[in-house]
């Protein structure tokens, strides 16, 4: 996945706010990138643009050889369904569907049959085999987040976006979730882009990209908790 000179601002006239300024970045296949930065640094907008949820004002976003900024709303939706997965901070499971139905929801929307073996494999890896017929309300926070990771994986997408995936979880549960996210990269070869505030979460990534005021200011390979924390406190976040 590649972003090329992407700019995005909100509003018009004097109240206009620039969220991204001329950002370019490549995410190689099978890598895990963490996006960090203070509030309002543009990391959410960055992710929305990369995922095609928001259209950039200028620039292009390439995935699997296609510029998604040029796609129609409908085509983009279908493209997203097949090529991108999402993991949210607040899980965002459909309350009326069981865990299994939530996981296979993309197939339901596709009108395709779910690949049973593949679903079972993911479910087993997520440790959800026993909970498949439960409604989200009957699951713990960690279990709900595992369901949403399973849902993100189920279509074998190129890229998975995770927005503060551990933000609503306690440390122990969060650690488990981060392990699972790491596995999606190591075992299944997905590209993972994660927005986070937490240096401990960022330490699971291959690299950390720091954003400030809508621009990329630094990049760190093989991050550790200490180095990331140090960087963040230096930039006075």
């Amino acid at each position, binding site marked *: 996945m590649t972003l090329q000179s992407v700019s995005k601002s909100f509003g018009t006239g004097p109240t206009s706010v620039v969220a991204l300024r001329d950002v370019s970045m490549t995410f190689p296949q099978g890598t895990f990138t963490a996006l960090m930065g203070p509030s309002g640094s543009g990391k959410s907008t960055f992710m929305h643009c990369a995922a095609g*949820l928001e259209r950039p004002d200028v620039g292009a976003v390439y995935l699997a050889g296609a510029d998604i900024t040029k796609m129609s709303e409908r085509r983009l939706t279908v493209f997203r*369904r097949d090529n991108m997965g999402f993991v949210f901070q*607040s899980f965002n499971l*459909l*309350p*009326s*569907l069981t865990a299994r139905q939530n996981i296979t929801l*993309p197939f339901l929307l596709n009108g395709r049959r779910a690949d049973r073996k593949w679903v079972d494999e993911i479910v087993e890896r997520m440790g959800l085999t026993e909970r498949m017929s439960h409604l989200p309300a009957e699951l713990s926070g960690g279990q709900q987040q595992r369901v949403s990771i399973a849902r993100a994986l189920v279509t074998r997408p190129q890229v998975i976006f995770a927005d503060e995936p551990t933000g609503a979880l306690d440390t122990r549960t969060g650690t488990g979730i981060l392990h699972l996210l790491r596995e999606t990269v190591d075992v299944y070869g997905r590209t993972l882009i994660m927005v986070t505030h937490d240096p401990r979460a960022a330490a699971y990534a291959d690299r950390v990209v720091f954003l400030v005021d809508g621009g990329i200011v630094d990049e760190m390979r093989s991050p550790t908790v200490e180095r990331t924390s140090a960087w963040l406190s230096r930039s006075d976040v």
Partner: protein
Amino acid sequence: MLRLALRSVSTRKARFAGSLLAIALAVTVITAGGVLLQSALTGDRGSPRFDAVTLIVTGNSHLPVASVNGQAIDAGADPVGDGLPPPRLPLAVAKRVAQVSGVREVVPDVSVYSQVVKVGEPSSIVNADGAMRGHGWSSSRLTPYRLRDGHPPVSPDEIVLDGRFAARKGLGTGDSADVVTAVDGTRRYRVVGVADPATPGPSHATAVFFTDQTAARLSGDPTRVDAIAVFAESHEDVTRLASRVRDAAGDGTLVLTDTSQAEPSADSGAYVATTAFLGIMSAVAGFVAIFVVAGTFSLLVVQRRRETAVLRAVGATGGQVRRMIAAEALVVSAIALAVGVPAGLMLSRPLASLLVTLGVAPTGFHPVYGAVPVIVAAVAGIGLTQLAAFTAAGRAARVRPTEALRESAAPPRRLSRLRTLAGFAFAALSAFIVANGIATGGNKGSGDVFVVSFTLMVTATLLGPMVTARVARLVAPLIAVLGRGQGFLAAANSKANPWRIASASTPITLAVTFTCIMIFMPQTVQKLTLRESQLRIQADHVLVSADGQGLPSAVTRDVARLPGVSAVAATTPIPVRLGMGGAGGPVPTRTLMALAVVPAQVTALLDLDVKVGRLSALTDDGIAASSAAAREHGWRVGDRLPVGLPDGTRRELHLVATYDRSLGLSDVLVPADLAARHAPQALATAIYVKGETAEGLNALTKTHPTLITLSRSAYLAQMKQSSDAQTTAVYLFIMLIGLYTAISVMNMLAAATAARAREFAALRLAGSTRRQVLTMVGGEALITVAVGVFLGTLIAATTLVSSSLALTRTPVFAAPPQVYLTIVATAVVLGLAATLFPAGMAVRLRAISVIGARE
């Protein structure tokens, strides 16, 4: 998609229960209304007086009056004329028909107003008997009637009575009875026999039989008959015979194979009134249903905004979201139909008997079950929900997937440009309707203006959030009284989120508008009528009839002879058929009840506020019209109007004057001479008398048993009372529609409040007590109700004032404060209960568990 929808409905039972209830109630109302309306439309079985007859020939009331500028006049729908007996026929037609092969016998039938009164009976009792019709004895074979006792009438003073009537009055063979007729006034007859119809049934006017000669004389014109009954030879093909008879009878006649349609049944007027009443009530209920169902669905979609965003983020297209909502609507409406249709069918029986009890519907009125109302309810139920879902889904499909990623659920919204434009278009349309209605004036103008309540309702709904924000700002300072903190929060919430207030206040606006209009509109018309009548009536006494049919001209004559009487004026309604609309274009004709008056008399006793021309010119070929009617149809004083008179004669009459004070009187006046020649059977509805003659008038009631004498003030008081009785029925149905609206209001408010459990929990965690949260919610509810009541009152007042302006050029309307305050109080109580109850449930939970729980 259907699977997802089914799943969604079945797990979210509580949330869907509300919309299910709203739609099921809508279906119930539509089904019940449809069944009753169909029953009223088909309930009138016609008159069985000609049951023994093969064919009936009558006059044709649907004949063109004249052709204007060589253009044929359209003789289309004629609500007044269709309820009246057809025009009379020349006797020559009977002779022609008798020659037709296959006709065994022809019987000319006469039917005249003939009220039989037991000698010495006070007039107050006469009222209970209803209208009676007199016929020649040869007509007794047409039903047939069989003599139970005595013999047929032979000499001119002999009559035969209907068996049941005779039994009720304690009259029998050998007794004397007075009969009041138009031609004779009151005359004493001898009862020589009692007869019963061969098949008993209450469905035509009680009959009294004279000799054929007497009946012909009493009809006022012995050369004409009311109907010609045809008995066919046995084994004759009725259809072929009918076409031969039609050829022989010639123009201006109607040949009926269904003899029950030959004359209006005793209940036909009541059925027309019931149909009109149910029609209006069904229209209002239907309109309310549209709003309620649309509101319920848009609320449902708003509540699920976040879930929709998740679906969009996961990869559902806008179309898929739309289809999912449509499928959910289908599931919900299918269940609603299964519940609502049987409920509506069951409800129609008690409602029918209620209508009978209230005197709105005739005694025989009962629900007739048919496929049509059920189909209409099914189509309306599914159609309405699909329409509501379609508009709501359009909004849902536009939900952006990023909303799932944000933590704040409801983003600030602005009115879309299209919606704003549509809102202003409807506002402009409303202004046009008001201006146009007032310019047209009269009954038509005031009826047209009624539509403005609908268009203003739509305007208020479209521009709701914009209006609400402003009204909330006005009301908010008052709410601060509740307590500084909570009042402030309530006001801030209302300003920040006018959408919630707007959608919650819509059903209240609707309820207040319709309740006010339905109750105050008839009262306003009544008040205006009373006011005009007070100004118009210059008489000291008003004479009316006890049987509601009218008084014979003999009464007028006798009153004029009384000492002390300085002026007498009778107003005698006769149906005239008039070409409506100005020159050019097709001219529809319609029947109006014109009042026949003697111009010299009427100017002395009725101040009609003549605007153009002079009433004294209302001589032989003159006609006068109300200013409103003249304006509506483009008549000017001096115009020649083609008129069809009750005996079938066509004349051109000169418009000699237009007058303003027509309310409670009539839109058209014709000279009494003309009426006497062309409608000898007509009876006076009122006789106005000037002079100190109370005793003399009372003495007259002895010779005229149907006469009731009233002082001017007593007459005006009675006018007020009779319309009060009508409003009781309206009140009751308003209460039913109000109940339905109330349930919907509760439903919407409760759903909106329950959806805010998290917000309440946050307030609790921030240190608010339960009481404080409830006070805040109550404050918001008050603002919601205030907005609803304000808009509803505004719309109702606009409609009422415009309607009054159209009718009488005065902005007067009747709204008794106690009734209005009751409506407002009901709205406040309902609004508070519907909000505080679910809020109370929500704050009872532990705040932390609500916050912790995921949506």
